[in-house]
């Protein structure tokens, strides 16, 4: 069964450093997403991406964040200058169509980001 994959599973970084989290969405999916989950809290939407551009973003997704689909398979989330409060589990998701088309979002296993 196809699945969303994410690397690395755990990333430790120093405050102020740049990190890139990587995702390989399901191959025939067209919509891509990043969510995050701070330990013990809700899963929060960050950004959605379609047709090589951001289609929606939350207030969390400020100028320190960016997303890219550098090739036909990878989808990345970059945090330019990490802060302690960026420590969280970051989930990538993809869907074949948008929710109006009734297709669910499939989630990857997550990358745990720890900022020291």
């Amino acid at each position, binding site marked *: 069964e196809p699945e969303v994959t994410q690397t690395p599973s755990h990333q430790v970084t120093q405050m102020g450093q740049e990190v890139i989290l990587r995702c390989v969405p399901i191959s025939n999916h067209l919509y891509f997403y990043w969510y995050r989950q701070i330990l013990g809290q809700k899963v929060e939407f960050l950004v959605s991406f379609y047709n090589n551009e951001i289609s929606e973003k939350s207030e969390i997704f400020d100028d320190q964040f960016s997303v890219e689909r550098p090739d036909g398979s990878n989808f990345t989330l970059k945090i330019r200058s990490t802060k302690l409060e960026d420590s969280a589990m970051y989930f990538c998701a993809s869907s074949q169509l948008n929710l109006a088309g009734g297709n669910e979002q499939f989630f990857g*296993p997550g990358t745990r980001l720890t900022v020291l």
Partner: protein
Amino acid sequence: GESVGLHLPTLSVQEGDNSIINCAYSNSASDYFIWYKQESGKGPQFIIDIRSNMDKRQGQRVTVLLNKTVKHLSLQIAATQPGDSAVYFCAERAHGGATNKLIFGTGTLLAVQP
């Protein structure tokens, strides 16, 4: 407002019993709802969804009920098994059809006792 914190509501059930997990959603304009299961160290896994033009939908061993009057969603799991132990989240699509953004609830920890 929303309440967040380190302590999830917990439902403890005996193996073989039926489980009912409840969720209150926030936006009366939301038109699509999903239940996700999250096991320790894994991402959310789709269980079942329902649109706002329905009040009940059944899957394999699971049933979702939607009460739009009181903005309440429930997930019923029949004959609960140890493998059902996980955190369960409801999610809603915000503001109706113009967005793909999902808003997740706080989550409920289901603990199945053998």
